[in-house]
């Protein structure tokens, strides 16, 4: 399978990348590791006419301890998030989730920023960043802005990034009091049929659900039940409240609702709740 023809532009700086996006608008797509975009291009489900390759902007690859939060450069690869000592000790949910994406070859190429900006509701990191209550930093022609994860995912493969903005950094609060990611798959390298991420952040519990809607979603009913004193088992019972997941050859909508409840219970228990 071969993508349609496109123009390839390799940029040497973030400003050049923003310039290229400003010039080409909707016709251009950013290329980082390429492990979300290239498969879609090979299937010709994505046909950008310009690829702006930001893969060599090594200044966007880092994991930093910033006191109350951990900052991760958008071009940090899953393999590096999985093994980085700051991520492992201060953002263990992210390190755990990064290590369960695809397979080693995919984790050698795929980047955290690419995964978030691609916004596939079945992918793992968007759910994890949402459960953590993270913040995404985007840079465009007019400078930087911060976008709460709760306002980032807009629809299926859609975010609130403007066409001329580049996601540059992901910030998550330190969350070392307990976490879990439950990923239900039939084969180890598959996408989650349903996933549940739990993060305990400063006395609060964040719970998010993967692949039950057009975007990853916070399980607000579960979070409210927990904050009013419900047990993990009781809180998990309301995990599917308000959900209308779609059915496919992996699962019916009802099976997805069932998985949401079961996996939420397991995740809460593993997180020590």
């Amino acid at each position, binding site marked *: 399978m071969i993508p349609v023809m*496109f123009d390839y532009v390799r940029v040497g700086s973030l400003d050049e990348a923003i310039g290229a996006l400003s010039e080409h608008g909707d016709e251009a797509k950013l290329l980082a590791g*390429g492990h979300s975009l290239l498969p879609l291009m090979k299937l010709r489900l994505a046909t950008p006419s310009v690829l702006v390759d930001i893969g060599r902007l090594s200044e966007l690859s880092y994991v930093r301890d910033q006191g109350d939060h951990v900052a991760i450069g958008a071009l940090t690869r899953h393999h590096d998030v999985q093994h980085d000592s700051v991520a492992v000790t201060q953002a263990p949910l992210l390190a755990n989730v990064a290590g369960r994406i695809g397979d080693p070859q995919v984790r050698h190429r795929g980047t955290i920023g690419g995964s978030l900006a691609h916004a596939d509701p079945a992918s793992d990191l968007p759910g994890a960043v949402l459960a953590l209550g993270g913040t995404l930093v985007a840079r465009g022609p007019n400078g930087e802005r911060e976008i709460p994860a709760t306002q980032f995912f807009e629809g299926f493969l859609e975010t609130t990034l403007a066409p001329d903005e580049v996601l540059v950094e992901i910030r998550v609060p330190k969350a070392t009091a307990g976490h879990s990611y439950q990923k239900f798959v039939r084969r180890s390298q598959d996408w989650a049929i349903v996933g549940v991420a739990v993060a305990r952040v400063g006395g609060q519990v964040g719970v998010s659900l993967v692949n039950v809607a057009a975007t990853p979603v916070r399980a607000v009913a579960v979070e409210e039940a927990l904050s009013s004193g419900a047990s993990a088992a009781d809180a998990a019972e309301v995990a599917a409240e308000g959900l209308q997941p779609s059915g496919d050859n992996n699962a019916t909508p009802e099976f997805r609702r069932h998985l949401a409840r079961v996996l939420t219970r397991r995740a809460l228990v593993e997180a020590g709740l």
Partner: protein
Amino acid sequence: MKVAVEVNGVAYERDVEARTLLVFLLRDEIGLTGTNVGCDTTSCGACTVLLDGESVKSCTVLAAQADGRSITTIEGLAKGEELHPMQRAFREHHGLQCGYCTPGMVMAAVSLVAENPDVDERQVREGLEGNLCRCTGYHNIVAAVLDAARSSREGAW
């Protein structure tokens, strides 16, 4: 566009379309056909090569992304007649049946052991989850990788 790569220690420069995938640069432009195309959808791992020493699926990397980088394919492992310890272990343990997945399996295993020479059986099985053997010959493949990892720890690599 011009793409310059070093493959198995040899420098190549080729003029290719921007949409050319790394695996087709290797196979069609450079003529190294040891790297197989299996699923062509980032699943099976038959096309695994090392890009700057790390395993990648060459059906999901643009040749342009490899420009200026160093690539190792299955042809680059042996030193003349002397097989790489991973190749030798695959032969000794009969870690192959039809052989189609083998180049990718060996390259993934080389990367895995280079990252962690202390791998145990579970880590080998998880570390090869990106490589499918449809003969389902995993048992001997895992035995081969564990044996090669042992020889690596003993300094034989």
